[in-house]
Structures are given as structure tokens and as C-alpha cells.
């Protein structure tokens, strides 16, 4: 268990994110072992004196603290020590399956992506739904997260200029990331600007965030997601 620490990581870059937070950024490629270390350090950092919250990002960790309850410089050193000493505890992630209708409303960019990749829209949908994704970090809508695991042939840089897209619990991709976005509540904003590519929308998905549910969020970092191909609208 403790011997699990075989994966050696370079010390992260620790920089202030203002007067009450530090950002720990790991060098190197985004990968599951690094992310596991980030989750573990985040969990351990939550117990440090003065730390008020932690938030994993993609290859990074935000640690918020109360500057009147702790010495910032001392906390910075403690975080570096944790990075070295914390074992990569494998997160007990659950598997969640979500049905997707590719193309059509909420899938405005399916054809564009297919053309850029010299694939058919169905091939894009099949490739996208063939992978298992891991929730790396809390995301842009409450209750969902940034996903890692996009097959490499689908990597696409973010658009230079954002475009307006309807928000219908759509499945977006950009770079090597995948995400689900949408109105967090009925009646929320129905469209928004994004530099990501929208491939489709979730069908019959549970609300990402529901206060009557325990826990209220649909996914947590470490959970695994499978997208089930429901249909492809071309």
C-alpha cells in the first residue's frame, strides 16, 4: 500500500493565486498517475491548519487558506512536503454510464470535427464513445467535471474565437479534454460562448447537481464515465 509510491514526480510549481490560495502545477503530461497524486495531496492538504478548501484541476491543485490562520510561506513548504510524502491512493471511483445522441441540437460541431479529422460523423461518435473517461477535476457546471481519456485521434486545439452554442447537457471536446456542459438548473442560461467543440447531448441524464440527492453532485474526481452511443444524427 505505502509501497505504491513507485511513480516519481518532479516537485510541482507552487505559486500564489492571490492572497489566500496557492496553485500547485505539476510539470509533464496529463496522466492518471499524476492526477492521483493531485487528488491525494488535495485530500491531505484539507487537514492542514488554515486550509479552507482544495480543488483539483487538470494536472494542478488549488489550495485555499485563511492567511490569518496560517503563515503562507510555511503552508507553501508544507504543500511541497505533502507532494513528496503522500502515497497515490487510488480513488474509489464509481462507473457512470451516460447515453449520448451525437449531432443534432447540442451537437452542432460533429460534422466540423469529422471534416477536420477526415472521418465520418459516425466514426467520430463511435471513437468518442469507445473510451472510458476519468473525472479529473470539478468542472464548469456544478456537479460535473473535466474528463480525461479522449482518444488521441480526436485531439483538437481550442477555437481561437469562442462561438455561441446552446447548452443542453452537451458533450464537448477540446485539446485532449472532454466535458459536459449545460444549464445547471431548469431556466438557466440556454446558450453560451465556448471555444470547445460540441459533439452531442446527453439523453435522459440525471441532473448533474441536485440538492435533494446525497451527495448533490453527479460525479466526483476519480469517477469513471462511459458514453453510450444512443444515435447519430447526420
Amino acid at each position: 500500500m505505502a509501497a505504491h509510491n513507485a511513480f516519481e514526480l518532479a516537485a510541482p510549481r507552487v505559486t500564489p493565486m492571490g492572497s489566500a490560495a496557492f496553485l500547485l502545477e505539476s510539470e509533464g503530461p496529463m496522466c492518471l498517475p499524476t492526477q492521483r497524486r493531485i487528488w491525494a495531496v488535495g485530500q491531505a492538504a484539507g487537514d492542514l491548519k488554515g486550509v479552507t478548501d482544495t480543488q483539483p484541476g487538470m494536472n494542478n491543485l488549488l489550495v485555499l487558506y485563511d492567511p490569518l490562520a496560517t503563515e503562507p510561506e510555511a503552508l507553501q513548504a508544507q504543500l511541497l512536503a505533502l507532494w513528496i510524502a503522500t502515497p497515490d491512493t487510488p480513488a474509489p471511483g464509481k462507473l457512470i454510464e451516460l447515453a449520448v445522441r451525437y449531432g443534432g441540437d447540442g451537437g452542432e460541431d460533429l460534422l466540423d470535427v469529422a471534416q477536420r479529422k477526415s472521418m465520418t460523423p459516425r466514426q467520430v461518435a463511435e471513437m468518442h464513445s469507445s473510451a472510458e473517461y476519468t473525472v479529473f477535476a470539478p468542472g464548469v457546471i456544478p456537479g460535473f467535471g473535466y474528463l480525461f481519456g479522449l482518444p488521441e485521434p480526436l485531439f483538437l486545439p481550442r477555437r481561437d474565437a469562442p462561438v455561441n452554442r446552446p447548452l443542453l447537457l452537451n458533450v464537448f471536446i477540446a485539446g485532449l479534454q472532454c466535458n459536459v456542459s449545460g444549464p445547471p438548473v431548469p431556466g438557466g442560461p440556454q446558450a453560451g460562448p465556448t471555444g470547445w467543440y460540441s459533439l452531442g447531448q446527453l439523453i435522459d441524464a440525471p441532473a448533474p447537481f441536485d440538492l435533494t440527492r446525497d451527495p448533490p453532485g453527479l460525479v466526483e474526481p476519480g469517477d469513471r464515465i462511459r458514453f453510450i452511443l444512443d444515435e447519430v444524427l447526420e
Partner: protein
Amino acid sequence: MSVPFLEVLATPPLNSVQDLGRPGQRRWGIGPTGMVDGLALQVGNALLGNAPGAAGLELQLFPVRLRVLRDGAIALTGADCDARLDGRPVPPWWALPVRAGQVLELSPPGATRRDLAAPALRACLSVAGGIDVPEVLGSRATHVRCAFGGLEGRALRPGDVLAAGAAQAPAFRDPAGFGALPPATALPLGEDPQATTVRVIPASDYDDFTEASHEAFWSDPWRVTIQSDRMGMRLEGTTPLKREVVQEMRSHGIVCGVVQVPPGGHPIIQLNDGNTAGGYPKMGVVIDPDLWRLAQLPPRSLLRFQRCDLAQARAAALEQDSYLAGLRRLSALSLMTPEVA
């Protein structure tokens, strides 16, 4: 036990119940929300002898009219809205006793008085005992985007009745009330009388920006644009900020006060209702003790950035803390009824 205390007679949209925010919920992608001018809320609570984080009303659009339903006490802090209680002027940064039936009116800052000494945008109304709404995920702040917290998860509407938490009605030595030295006077900052100055700690992407961008960031005044709300403030300057090194940005957690630079080069400062994560390059972060200064900047006002480090930021936090501690101590004496033997 809570009792109906205030009835909303008139309010534009976008006014809401807020407290100091909802910490500890970032794993669900739930950001801080809370009063943008958190210092104004803490001053109001200090004057009334409330807990520092007791909920109040954040008023950012006017006119607002409220009827008092029960004898008690209120404090008005933040923007000077030329408040009137049954027609009688109430000074800014002020706590006073109120009686059932009285009507409180607030006007847009600067509309009825032209002699405001500082920029003013958002007012805070505190009540003795705090505004009593159910706590959701550890806070009473309204999360408008997710429709929870505050009063039914939404902004205030005419006809709403707000309850106050149980509180010993504070006894005022003078029925005219008393007030606080405004933070702009007690905690002055900056040399340019035409602009508001805030302190910024450079962020991890700072070195990626060009030298000209660094120069412009620290020495130019930045104008607040009309595209500003509780999510963020968009700024406009004469020199768009550009990066020398363009790296693939990885999404990470962001905080209130982060100065992000989208491709156009015009910075956006994130505020309380913003996303919890982002990926735009960030020049720096406005320090927490200066966030209240941002909260009071109306569109078209000018902003200057002053470079600072962690030690200076902590000193600023301590200075603000001691200002609040002083107010709590002195208010307790002002509310105390001395025993005459």
C-alpha cells in the same frame, strides 16, 4: 426563532440575500457567491453586534423601499444611497434602531446626492440577528445561477418578507444611531484621486506576458466597462495585454479577484458568481483585502493595479482585521446600557 422583520415594497431585479459566501464546496463546482463587498457586510454586522458572517441584503439596483415589520435595528453600509427612514436622512455606514411601520428608501448612488467622496455601487443592509433564511451547503448566500440559497434561491421581489434571526434588540445610547469610519477613509490606498487602486500579486502566467504588457498593466489606468456584474468585471485599457509565450492552458481552480486575459487582451476580473475553474492566462490576482474596493466600482470608473507580495497582502489582511476588531469593541460599548448605581 425567527420573526418577520422586513417587507420588500419595491426593488429592481438583482438584489439578493448574501453572506460571506459558501466555502468548502469546490469539489462540486460550487463557487463562493456571497456579498461582493464582504467588508461592508462585516462592518454592518460589527455595528449591530452580529456574528461576522450573518446574512444581509446586497442591494445593487435601486430604488429600493422596505417596510419595517417589527421594532429592531439595522445597519446600512457600502454604497451611499442617500437612505431615508420615514423621510429622515440616514448617514452612510450607519446603524440605528427602527420601529414597526417605518419605511426605508434607498436611491441609486449619486442620483440624489452629488457629493459622494468615493465610487459607490453596492449597498449592504444588515439587520440585528441577521437575515434568517435556511442554510444551504453551509451558507445563506443566494446562488442565483443554481437557484438555491438565500430566499428561495432567487433575487428579491416586491412583496417578499424577510425574517431576522433571534437577537437581543440592541440598546442604542442615541436613537439617531452611530456609524463606522468608512473603509475608504480608515484603509486608504493609492495616490490617484481619479482612480481606485487595488493590490495585485502576480500569478503563475505573469512571466508569459510581454514586457510592454507588464508595463501597461502596472502603470495604465483601466476602465471598468458596462459588461460587469457579480460574475466579473471586464476592463478596457489603451494597451491590450499580450503573451510572449503561448502555452496550452490547463483548466484549474480560480478565485475571486483573478485577473484573466482572454485572447483580445482586455482583462476580466472574476467576482463572486464566477466559475470555479478557468483556463485563460492570468496576469495576477487582486488580494482579498482589496476585493471590497472592486465591489464599489461602477461602469466607466478607473482602476489602477499596485504590485504586492504575500507579506504585504497579509499585512493588509491584518490591518483590515484590526479595523473590524476595533469596530466590534467600540460598537459593543455604544450598544451597552451602562448601569447607573
